[in-house]
C-alpha cells in the first residue's frame, strides 16, 4: 500500500503541477508567445496579412534615440510614483493595522479609495484639479490671492498622481502583512530600547519585506506601464513615456504592434530581472512572523503621536480621496466644465442632479453594471482560488519547477495593458473554445492581467505563516486539503480577501482588456464610461464613477473585518 500511495502521490503531484503550468501557460504564456512572435516578424500576426518573415527590425526601430528620453521620463515617474505610493500606503497600512489611531474604518477607506476610480478618470480629475491655468486648486488660490500655483502637468505632478493612485496597492498588501506580524516582535524591540521609529525601521517594516519589496516592484512596473495618466497629464505638455510610446505604436495608423511587442519583450526581461533581484534580496532571510506560540492582536498605543497621525490621515484622505471626489462631484453635478472663479464652485444654480439620475437610470449603465459585477465577481472568485493554489504550490510544496510558476505569474506585469489585451485576443479568438464573445473571455482577460497583483497579495501573506502550523495539522492526520481549509486559509484570510477585493475593483474599472473583447451583450461599465468620455460627456463619466465608488465603498466597509486573519 505505501508503494502504491507513493506512486499515487507522485502522479498527483505531477498532475497538479501539469494543471498549474497548463492554466498559467494558457493564460499567460500563449498570449506572451503571440507577442514575442509578433516582435520577431514583419507583419501583423494572426490577421492573414501575407507571409511573415523573421526580422530584428522591430527591435532596431524601438531602440531609436527618442526612446532614451522616454525611458528616462518613465524611470523618473515610476521611481517618484513608487516612493510616493509606498510612503502613503505603508504609513496608512501601519496606522490601520497596528495602531490605535482613531476612526480605523475611515483610515481603511482612505487607504483603498483611490483605487476605485479608473486611472483615466483619475487623470482627468487631476488635470481638472491641478492644471496650471484653470485647475480648481489654482482657481481657489487665485480667488484667495494666494501666490501659489500648482502644475500637475509636469513630471513631478505625474509622479504624484501615480503615487496617489497606486498607494492602495501598497496599502492593501502591507495591511495584510502587518496584521500578521506578531506584536511580540515589536514589543521586544521597544523593550530593548528602540524608539517607535527604530522599531518601525528595523523591525516592523523589514519583517514584512516580502510585502514591501513585492508591492514596490508591482507598483514600479505598473506605473512604468501605466498609460492614461502620463498621456492625459504629460501629453499636452510634451512629456513622453515608454508606455505612451507603446500605446502610440499600437493605436496610430498604421500601427506597429510588432514594435510594441518588441518593446514589451524587453520590458518583460526587465521585469524578470527585477523579480529575480527581489528573490535574491529576500532569499536567506526568514519572514515567518506567525509562529506556533500564539498571535495576539495588540494595537500600538500612539500616545502623543495620535494627533499627528490623525492629521496625517485626514490630510491624506483629503488629498487622495477628498479632492478627486470633490472634482468628480463638480463634474457630475454641473454640465459645464468652465469655472470662472472660486465662487462658482458653490453656485447652486449650475448644479443639477440630472446627469447622475440619467446615468443611474440608463439601461446601458445598468447592463454595464450587471456585466461588470458578474465579470468582476467571477474574476475575483476564480482568481483567488487559482492564485492561492499557485502561491501554495510555489511556497509550500516540492512540486517540480515550482519557482518558474512565479516567474510566469509575473509576466503580465511587463505587458502593457493594450499589448496584453491584443495577445489575449489573438489567443482566445483562435482557440476552439466557446469562450470568445462571452463574459468568460473578459474573466480570462482580467484574470490574466491581474495575476501579478493577486499572486503577490496572497503570497506575501503565506510567506508569513510558519510552516510548522501546517505541519502540525498534517501530523494530526489532516489531509492537505483539510490543512489548507482549517489552518492555512483562516490565517491568510486577510491576504486572500484583500486579493479578492483588489481583483474585484480592478476588474470593474479595467478598460484596456475589455476594449478588444467586449460585445454588445458583454459591454461592461468601464466601456460605457469610456464611450461617454470619448463623446465628451464628462458629467456622465463623473456620475458613473461616483455611482460605482459608492458601491465599492459599501463593499469595502462590509469586507473590512475579513481583511484580517481569522483570529
Amino acid at each position, binding site marked *: 500500500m505505501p508503494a502504491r500511495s507513493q506512486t499515487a502521490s507522485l502522479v498527483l503531484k505531477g498532475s497538479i503541477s501539469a494543471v498549474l503550468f497548463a492554466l498559467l501557460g494558457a493564460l499567460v504564456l500563449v498570449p506572451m508567445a503571440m507577442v514575442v512572435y509578433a516582435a520577431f516578424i514583419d507583419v501583423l500576426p494572426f490577421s492573414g496579412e501575407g507571409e511573415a518573415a523573421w526580422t530584428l527590425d522591430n527591435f532596431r526601430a524601438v531602440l531609436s534615440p527618442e526612446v532614451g528620453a522616454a525611458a528616462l521620463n518613465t524611470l523618473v515617474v515610476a521611481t517618484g510614483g513608487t516612493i510616493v505610493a509606498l510612503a502613503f500606503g505603508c504609513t496608512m497600512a501601519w496606522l490601520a493595522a497596528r495602531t490605535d489611531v482613531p476612526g480605523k474604518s475611515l483610515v481603511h477607506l482612505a487607504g483603498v479609495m483611490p483605487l476605485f476610480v479608473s486611472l483615466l478618470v483619475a487623470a482627468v480629475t487631476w488635470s481638472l484639479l491641478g492644471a496650471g491655468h484653470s485647475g480648481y486648486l489654482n482657481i481657489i488660490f487665485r480667488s484667495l490671492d494666494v501666490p501659489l500655483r500648482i502644475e500637475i502637468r509636469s513630471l513631478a505632478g505625474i509622479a504624484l498622481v501615480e503615487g496617489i493612485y497606486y498607494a492602495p496597492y501598497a496599502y492593501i498588501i502591507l495591511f495584510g502583512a502587518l496584521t500578521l506580524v506578531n506584536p511580540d516582535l515589536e514589543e521586544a524591540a521597544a523593550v530593548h530600547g528602540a524608539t517607535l521609529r527604530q522599531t518601525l525601521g528595523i523591525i516592523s517594516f523589514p519583517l514584512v519585506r516580502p510585502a514591501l519589496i513585492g508591492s514596490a516592484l508591482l507598483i514600479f512596473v505598473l506605473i512604468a506601464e501605466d498609460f492614461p495618466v502620463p498621456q492625459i497629464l504629460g501629453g499636452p505638455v510634451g512629456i513622453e513615456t515608454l508606455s505612451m510610446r507603446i500605446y502610440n505604436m499600437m493605436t496610430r495608423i498604421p*500601427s506597429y504592434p510588432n514594435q510594441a511587442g518588441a518593446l514589451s519583450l524587453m520590458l518583460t526581461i526587465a521585469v524578470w530581472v527585477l523579480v529575480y533581484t527581489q528573490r535574491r534580496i529576500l532569499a536567506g532571510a526568514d519572514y515567518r512572523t506567525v509562529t506556533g506560540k500564539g498571535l495576539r492582536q495588540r494595537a500600538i498605543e500612539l500616545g502623543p503621536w495620535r494627533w499627528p497621525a490623525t492629521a496625517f490621515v485626514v490630510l491624506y484622505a483629503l488629498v487622495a480621496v477628498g479632492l478627486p471626489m470633490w472634482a468628480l462631484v463638480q463634474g457630475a453635478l454641473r454640465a459645464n*466644465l468652465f*469655472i470662472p472663479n472660486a465662487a462658482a464652485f458653490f453656485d447652486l444654480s449650475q448644479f443639477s442632479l440630472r446627469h447622475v439620475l440619467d446615468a443611474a437610470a440608463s439601461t446601458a449603465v445598468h447592463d454595464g453594471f450587471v456585466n461588470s459585477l458578474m465579470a468582476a465577481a467571477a474574476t475575483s472568485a476564480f482568481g483567488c482560488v487559482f492564485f492561492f493554489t499557485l502561491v501554495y504550490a510555489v511556497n509550500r510544496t516540492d512540486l517540480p519547477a515550482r519557482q518558474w510558476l512565479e516567474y510566469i505569474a509575473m509576466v503580465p506585469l511587463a505587458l502593457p495593458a493594450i499589448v496584453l489585451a491584443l495577445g489575449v485576443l489573438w489567443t482566445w479568438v483562435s482557440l476552439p473554445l466557446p469562450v470568445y464573445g462571452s463574459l468568460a473571455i473578459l474573466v480570462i482577460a482580467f484574470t490574466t492581467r491581474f495575476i501579478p497583483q493577486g499572486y503577490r497579495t496572497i503570497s506575501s501573506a503565506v510567506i508569513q505563516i510558519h510552516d510548522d502550523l501546517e505541519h502540525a495539522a498534517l501530523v494530526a492526520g489532516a489531509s492537505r486539503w483539510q490543512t489548507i481549509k482549517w489552518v492555512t486559509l483562516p490565517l491568510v484570510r486577510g491576504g486572500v480577501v484583500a486579493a479578492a477585493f483588489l481583483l474585484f475593483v480592478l476588474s470593474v474599472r479595467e478598460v484596456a482588456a475589455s476594449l*478588444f473583447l467586449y460585445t454588445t451583450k458583454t459591454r461592461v461599465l468601464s466601456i460605457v464610461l469610456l464611450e461617454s468620455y470619448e*463623446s465628451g460627456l464628462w458629467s456622465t463619466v463623473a456620475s458613473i464613477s461616483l455611482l460605482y465608488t459608492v458601491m465599492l465603498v459599501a463593499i469595502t466597509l462590509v469586507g473590512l473585518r475579513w481583511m484580517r486573519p481569522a483570529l
Partner: protein
Amino acid sequence: AVDGETVADAKTFEAAKKEGRLLAYGTYPGDMMKPILAAFESDTGIKAEYVRLPSQGMYQRVTAEFAAKKLEADYIDLTDLPLIQQLINRGILNVPHRVPAFEQIPAAIKDPQGRWYAVIRPVAVIAVNRSRVADADIPKSWKDLINPKWKGIVGTVSIDAGGSVLSLYSFLREKVDPDFWPKFAALTPRIYPTIAPLTTDIARGEIALGIGAIAEPIWLQMKAGAPVKVVFPSEGIAVFPAAGGISTTAKNPNAAALFLNWLTSKRGGNVIARGGAYPANPGSNRPHLEGLEYPSVDRVWNLQLAEWMAERESRMKLWRETFGVK
C-alpha cells in the same frame, strides 16, 4: 419605405425584418451614435447593436476575428479609408452593395462598387473659449490662427489620433496655406493625444482655443453655459469619414444592407445631420445644432482615398517632424 423615400425593396426589407437585428462595429463615439441607431430602429423595427473601438483597435479586432472565423459584425465602419481598403483587400468588407441613393452620393465618399460609403462625416473645427479670447479677437479663418498672440495657449490633436486629424491637416496644407504646418507649429501648440481632453481643456479655459475639436461636444458645453464658441472658418472645413460597409461574414446581411441604405438615405442623413455631422446623402439637411450655422456641403473638403493611400505615411512623418512629436 420611410418618409416617402424608398430605403429598400420589399424583399430585402422582409428578409431584414426576419433577421430582426443588426450588429454594427463602428468608430463613431457610442453616445453620439445612440440617436442614430434609435431612429433606425424606430423606422425599421430592427434592433441595432453597436460595438465601438478606435479605428486601429477596430481594425486589429476585426482582422483577428475574421482570421479566426469569429467575425460576427454585419456592418463595419472605420474612420480611415486606407484601412477600409485593406479590409476590402482581405475580403472582410467585400460586399458590393448599391444603395438606392447611390447615384446622388459624390464619388469621393463612396466606393465605386458600393463596398463602402462615408456615411457620417464629422467636422473638425476651431473651438474658442471666450473667457480667454476677446470677442474681437476670435479667429474667423484658419489663417487667423497664425498669429503670435496664440503662442502657448492654442491646442491641437496629434496626427496619431486618427483620420480626423490627418484630413484636417491635409486640408490646411492644401487649401489654406502650404506652410500652415510650420507656421502653426511655431506657436508651440499643446498637442493632445485624442480629441476628448482637447475639448475639456477648451471648455474650461485651460487653453484659449484649439483646432481639431469636433463640433458636437463643444456645442454641448456651450449649451450648458460654458463660454465656448465653435468657429467654421471662412476657408471651408475638413470632414473625416466614418466609412462603412457590409461585412462579408454578416449574419444579417439584409439588415446590414437595410442599415446602409438607411444611413445613406435622406431620412437617415437628416438624423445624422441632427448630431452635427455631415451625412452622405446630399439631399439631406445640412448638419444642424442649435445656435450653430454649418457651412453648406460644398464648402466641405474630403480627403480622398487615393491621396490618403499615397500620402498617409509621408505626411504623418512630416507632421511629427514639424511639430516635434516623436
